[in-house]
């Protein structure tokens, strides 16, 4: 948590200093898409490569890209996710284990600007706090993510893009991992 706070302060400091030099571009966007658990609750005795991916979940949220310095965009975000229940037959009886509900917030560091025309690409990485909850289990830890975004459409005020992302929540010596694909629309508030 301290690390996250330090990073946020650092980002604000950089943005503040850069703002003195020129205009700060602020946008607001919404996104939604898919998130898939990776290597979670697998049975290794009958493991096949396809089992590495769990049932597809959904994710949606809000992003606020702040473009204050030339090469980096800071992007605070908030996201919610919902993972599907899992059915399994054990001892001849079929049981259902609830999927996680997730909430996360943090900041992405984007190389360049996320707003751009068709096939404008930008890598990013981020750090945040993620809470995963289901009955009888709660994980509330630091999360990390990295991915690649691609622009699909851009006008003076509106841009549309898609992102592919790998994210994980560190749980001590191990982690919970997810891959995701989202599409989003962003509205530019200031240039």
């Amino acid at each position: 948590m301290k690390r996250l706070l330090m990073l946020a302060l650092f980002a604000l400091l950089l943005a503040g200093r850069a703002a003195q030099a020129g205009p700060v571009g602020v946008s607001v966007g919404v996104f939604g898409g898919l998130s898939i658990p990776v290597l979670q609750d697998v049975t290794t005795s009958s493991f096949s490569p396809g089992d590495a991916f769990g049932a597809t979940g959904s994710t949606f949220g809000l992003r606020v890209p702040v473009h204050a310095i030339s090469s980096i965009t800071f992007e605070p975000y908030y996201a919610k996710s919902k993972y599907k229940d899992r059915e399994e037959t054990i001892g001849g009886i079929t049981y259902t284990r609830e999927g996680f509900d997730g909430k996360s917030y943090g900041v992405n560091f984007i190389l360049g600007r996320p707003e751009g025309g068709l096939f404008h690409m930008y890598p990013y990485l981020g750090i945040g706090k993620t809470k995963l909850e289901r009955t009888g289990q709660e994980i509330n830890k630091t999360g990390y993510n990295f991915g690649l975004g691609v622009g699909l459409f851009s006008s003076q005020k509106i841009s549309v893009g898609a992102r592919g992302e790998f994210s994980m929540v560190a749980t001590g010596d191990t982690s919970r991992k997810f891959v995701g694909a989202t599409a989003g629309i962003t509205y530019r508030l200031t240039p």
Partner: protein
Amino acid sequence: MKRHVWMVLALGLGLAAPGCILTSGQVQINFDLPNFSGNSLTGIDHTTIDLNSEKEYQDNKEKLKDLSDLAVLGKFTNNLTTPVNVEVWMTTTPSNHLDETSLMQDPTKVKLWGPFQVAGSTTKTIDWNASAQLFTTAGKAALLTEAKGDGNFTLYAVGPAGQAYNFSVSNGALVLVIDVGI
């Protein structure tokens, strides 16, 4: 461009490094339990579990970091007309107690799970989500210690102390989801 290459290389190294938090997963292991019963008059059953008998545990024991999810599953039948609260206890060293009094005198006993209430003269299949909530903190810690240790312990199902009970459990299973480094 050069800077980007280093970033990609660093991420690649992180992904490939053995024991790294990136190269980890959650492995589920199911232990089938024999049918067992608990009776305040005639005594209690027990089952000794040797985790080493499961290949998945053997394969992952050295890489085991934590227990992430647990459940006791099965079909519980209350043979009396009054409700019963079933609890599962474990002794961290294998034992063969035949009644509740003897079990409670065992210094290695730990309450693992429960209480799970079954109404009088009914059979109830426990829900996985409900079961995951019934593990005690001490029980989880004891199971983790066992999983990281010799993996040998004994389970008992009992009713409330001082009350009459008579129940049986069929299709039972102990489900462990372990966090492992890969």
